[in-house]
């Protein structure tokens, strides 16, 4: 069992943080890599990119949004409970390089994944502007941490309750227009990454995105995680999860992520019935 030693709720309880004892994974993991978690015997294998690792303490931290049956099951795990299985680190680590001016764009729980990457990019000497967004102020996560990890933090809310009133893409475009940006890293919901990609294509910048397709094994054995990048099929679990954001077929990814929407509802309803809700 992989024990949970810290648990926090964020964004009005819709987002959960778990710090988990996993010394071997913590020792090996690098920014951008993910783990696969399975709560119990009957559980699903769920991939989540690590938000934090502490090799000394032997822990990894994951931050996830409660969206369906499996994450609802995760939510019910308390401190001292644990995950039956945690597998990793999986996937390729982020390619980190000093390029100069960088923009990191994050939305939703993508901000959690973006955090260690932002910090690492800054640590090796990049000038990092970070733009994070949420629907409304109370759903924003990791503001303090992102502030510390970047040179300049911009915040956006769709409803204007905090920071810039509008989308991250608008602020990103302003920063791009100031010139000099070499690299954009965007991690968040697929529509956000697609919108970012549509804008950055018009500039002379590279775009790095982190994809989160449905996975089973995470070792290249099933092909369930396949995504189309530059017209070629790639397995996100071994070839990614990070790809050139100007080449990813986001529409296909979005459709494939919806493969089991009906089943997820059935599974969730079943879970609620079992719990007597």
């Amino acid at each position, binding site marked *: 069992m992989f024990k949970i030693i810290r648990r926090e709720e964020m964004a009005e309880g819709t987002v959960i943080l778990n710090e988990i004892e996993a010394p*071997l*994974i913590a020792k*090996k993991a690098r920014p951008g890599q993910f783990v696969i978690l*399975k709560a119990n015997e*009957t*559980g*699903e*294998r769920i991939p989540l990119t690590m938000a934090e690792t502490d090799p000394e303490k032997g822990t990894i931290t994951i931050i996830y949004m409660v969206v369906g*049956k*499996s994450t609802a*099951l995760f939510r019910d795990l308390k401190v001292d409970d644990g995950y*039956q*299985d*945690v*597998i*990793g*680190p*999986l996937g390729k680590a982020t390619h980190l390089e000093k390029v100069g001016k960088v923009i990191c764009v994050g939305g939703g729980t993508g901000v959690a994944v973006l955090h260690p990457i932002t910090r690492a990019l800054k640590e090796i000497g990049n000038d990092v502007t970070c733009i994070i967004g949420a629907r409304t102020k109370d759903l924003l996560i990791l503001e303090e941490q992102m502030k510390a990890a970047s040179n300049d933090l911009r915040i956006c809310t769709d409803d204007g309750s905090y920071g810039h009133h509008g989308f991250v893409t608008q602020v990103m475009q302003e920063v791009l227009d100031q010139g000099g940006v070499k690299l954009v890293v965007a991690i968040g919901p697929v529509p956000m990454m697609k919108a970012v990609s549509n804008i950055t294509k018009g500039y002379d910048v590279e775009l790095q995105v982190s994809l989160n397709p449905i996975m*089973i*094994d*995470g*070792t*290249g*054995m*099933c*092909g*369930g995680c*396949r995504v*189309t990048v530059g017209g070629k*099929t790639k397995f996100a679990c*071994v070839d990614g999860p990070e790809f050139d954001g100007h080449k990813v077929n986001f529409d*296909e990814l979005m*459709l*494939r992520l*919806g*493969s*089991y929407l009906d*089943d*997820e509802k*059935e*599974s969730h309803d*079943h*879970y609620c019935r079992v719990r007597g809700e």
Partner: protein
Amino acid sequence: MAETAAKKAKKEKIPRQAMPEQEPKVRARNFEEVPTGQSAEAAMQEAARCLQCKKPACVAGCPVEINIPAFIQQVKDGDFTAAITTIWETNALPAVCGRVCPQELQCEGVCIVGKKGDPVAIGNLERFVADYERKHREAKPPEKSEPTGKKVAVVGSGPSGLTVAGDLVLKGHEVTIFEAFHKPGGVLVYGIPEFRLPKEIVFSEVAGLEKLGAKLECNAVVGRSVTIEELFEEGYDAVFIGVGAGLPRFLNVPGENLIGVFSANEYLTRSNLMKAYLFPEYDTPVIQGKNVVTLGAGNVAMDSARTALRLGADTSRIVYRRSRDEVPARGAEVHHAEEEGVDFHFLTAPTKFFGDEKGRITGMEGLKMELGEPDASGRRRPIPIEGSEFELECDLVIIAVGANANPLLTQSTEGLKLNKWGYIVADEATGKTSKKAVWAGGDIVTGSATVILAMGAGRDAANSIHDYLTWGW
């Protein structure tokens, strides 16, 4: 002389004892094992059909050379415990092999009785003996040697890895198995369905290994969680790599990434390992097609097409680009699939898949083929017939056209020689690789093959590893 002739005549009269099976209509809708097992009487009757050949062809036909006439004689005498002891000398997983070996190409294919009539049902007898022992636990487990203090890491818990672990633990070495999945067994657990090989059998074999002292580390993806180099640094003296083939082949035709197009690996893993057939009690779903097409005609394809029926398909079709004569699956699987209502379309190949606005598959286009000259594999090459395009409606497609070598481990290990397809180059007799103290065997060396060949490779490697640990490289 006259007496032996009379004896022979009598023997020939005993017909091959049929294996009782669930009715095709019933079993096509459940996941319980298809053959239900024989009675002791039937097994003894069957054993009486063996001629006890002086030069038994069956033994030579068995990749691990089980002493077949000896164990059959013991079955005939009703001494099932002696029979299992005989089998264990060369085969640690008889309950598995009795069920999944291609006997018609091996022992039974060359059985002398089979020259005129049906061969002795060696596979069924092996299964009977193993099941009897699992139920009664009467045989003495093999003796374990004194501890040697040597440590061996086995990567992968498929049949090759389990064999290596079993052999070396008995020889007194400390063995740890590293398995990427959360459950051990390899293809036996994630690939081959419950209705053909109940998982309880595999887990009971693994539990036996653990009882002997082998350690099992699941969730350990070697190459990511830990590298081979690090295993040596941690004090392992030798490493065996038995990671299987494990990279699904796709067809590279348009529409292959539509929802509802699966690799057989994904489809079967969802259903078997993750138990999607018990959804929603188990959380992992799988798409339940009404009109299912499986591409390919090996064991993997049969398993997929039959699983689809059990998950509620109205039609389950096998589409294969060669003819019936080239079908690589076990005879019994093809026969079972046909009985259950799987439709076979030979000499047809897919050219594209169509979908709807939600990205879900709605059909495929195929071409008719004819057979041309033999290709590298010695089989006649299928050639498309121009203008023979046709369409097939379907809402689930399973691609079961083979596997390639998964590069995850091999690319993270320096000094490991690979062939041009990415499989590990290993000495045929010993399993030694180009890297010191590293052995390999099973599908990662041969490409997709069989359980028994993987076990045979494991046995050879175990012997070689033992020699190394005793005498040096």
